[in-house]
């Protein structure tokens, strides 16, 4: 009988404890659209996320359309409201385009330089354990935008589809996927794969880098590129036929202080496909690299 009582008490305590652990969650939809100014026929779009995914698509419209889902998770109502008011998508519209970013108590946005950083060391009053947040952003971009920069850091993938512009994409803890792209590209992540496919080959540059992940790039058959690659534990694979190895560059540097001269043959390897016009660069530490047609 006594054991029965204690077990009831115990389960009651357990329930109390687990109740206190149940988090409350709020989901908000954000729908916005921004007009694109076109001065001298040039326009650009920046999308900067911190926690969550970013998907960018091209569409037949004239404005930049944002469809986002904001999810805030907290343990009590107070913190939930705090999160809802502190986490927002903000947009800065200027003469060349629009800069959309995740606003956060730690965010420092410099409108003149178009620089954004999340610096929680300088905002000590912000206690980031009150709530958790995640924003998944879908952006639709008009076809004639010339430059797009998209980035996220945690908890999400970065997906870009059907754009024809110069592109700068970066992720940190997640993968990066660019489909049917046409134009030059800079693609960087740290922990994740980089997958890029082109519908027309880049004409001047294409840079891909990751630390822990595979890089897979698909180009058209008629590629004219100079490929530099650097890896520590990976291999480079390709199915292009017309490969010509290039001599390693000799770097000479003089140290006036020690009156010494250094000559260095670095370990970046390079080869040429076709005429070698566009500069391709692949960098990874732990992962293979593929260049296919």
């Amino acid at each position, binding site marked *: 009988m006594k054991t029965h009582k204690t077990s009831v008490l115990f389960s009651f305590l357990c329930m109390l404890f687990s109740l206190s652990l149940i988090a409350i969650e709020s989901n908000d939809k954000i729908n916005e659209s921004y007009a694109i100014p076109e001065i001298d026929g040039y326009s650009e779009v920046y999308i900067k996320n911190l926690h969550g995914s970013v998907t960018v698509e091209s569409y037949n419209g004239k404005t930049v359309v944002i469809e986002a889902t904001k999810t805030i998770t907290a343990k009590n109502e107070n913190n939930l409201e705090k999160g809802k008011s502190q986490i927002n998508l903000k947009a800065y519209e200027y003469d060349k385009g629009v800069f959309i970013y995740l606003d956060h108590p730690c965010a420092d946005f410099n409108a003149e330089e178009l620089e954004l950083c999340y610096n929680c060391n300088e905002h000590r009053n912000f206690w980031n354990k009150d709530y958790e947040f995640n924003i998944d952003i879908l952006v639709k971009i008009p076809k004639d935008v010339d430059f797009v920069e998209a980035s996220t850091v945690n908890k999400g993938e970065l997906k870009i589809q059907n754009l024809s512009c110069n592109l700068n994409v970066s992720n940190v803890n997640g993968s990066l996927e660019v489909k049917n792209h046409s134009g030059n590209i800079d693609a960087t992540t740290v922990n994740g794969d980089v997958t890029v496919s082109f519908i027309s080959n880049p004409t001047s540059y294409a840079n891909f880098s990751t630390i822990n992940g595979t890089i897979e790039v698909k180009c058209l058959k008629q590629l004219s590129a100079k490929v530099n690659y650097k890896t*520590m534990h990976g291999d480079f*694979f390709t199915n292009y036929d017309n490969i010509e190895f290039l001599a390693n560059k000799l770097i000479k540097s003089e140290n006036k202080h020690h*009156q010494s001269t250094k000559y260095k*043959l670095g370990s970046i390897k390079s080869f040429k496909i076709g005429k070698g016009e566009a500069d391709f660069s692949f960098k990874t530490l732990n992962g293979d690299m593929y260049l296919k047609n």
Partner: protein
Amino acid sequence: MKNLKLIIVALLSIIMIGAIGQESQKQQLIVPLTNPDKPGTLELGGINCSIFVSGYNGKEVIVDAHTNNGISKITTTGNGMKKITTSSMSIEVEERDNKVEVSSGINNEGIIFEIKVPFNFSLELSTVNNGEIKVENVNGEINASNINGPITIHNVNGLVSASTINDDIKITFDKVTPDSPMAFSTLNGDIDITFPANIKANLKIKNDRGDTYTDFDVVLSKDRKVNNETSKKGVYKVSVDEWIYGKINGGGPEYSFKNFNGDITIRKK
């Protein structure tokens, strides 16, 4: 007979494929010296490398490096993709006041260095695995150390100190710098040194399990050194020095030879 022909053709083609596969491109660095008319020093230390140094009639240091696998090649893999292999070799050479220092980056494959230096050059060379050290036609001071490979030095004019653990040391001198000591030591290899006939030297030899040969007229000293030691705890210890001492041509600087499991040969040129 037909079979034999077939075998020969097959063998030939295998050899040819092998030759193509082993084709290796060289990386070359040419390093001019600050004072081309003065003697210089070359310093090269590696873990997995072979080092070949030869003196030539020129004023620059020429560093050629390649790996066993060659520098770049394309191999076909099963799924239609080709694997591109280039070595992770990177070389850095620093020249400062006629002192040339060669270093290589992290490399698992092993690098083969072929270096040409002006005749008057001193060398400081060391390696550990998978390689040999070979030096030719150099006038200067040579300091070589190898752990698991041989040291071979030919036609040197100057002085040498060489040590290995598991392989042989073979040296032929054209001339020796007078009044300078030298040392040669190994553990599991043979030591074979050829000196000019007119050298003056004090020999100091220790050979635990091998034999020592020479065609010089060596005057051995009969006394053995006895060491008396008293340790701090008051223990008194007497030990007999195991080195053998001898003199060539009346004696001179000390040449020391040390071996454990191999022979020592001291030849007259």
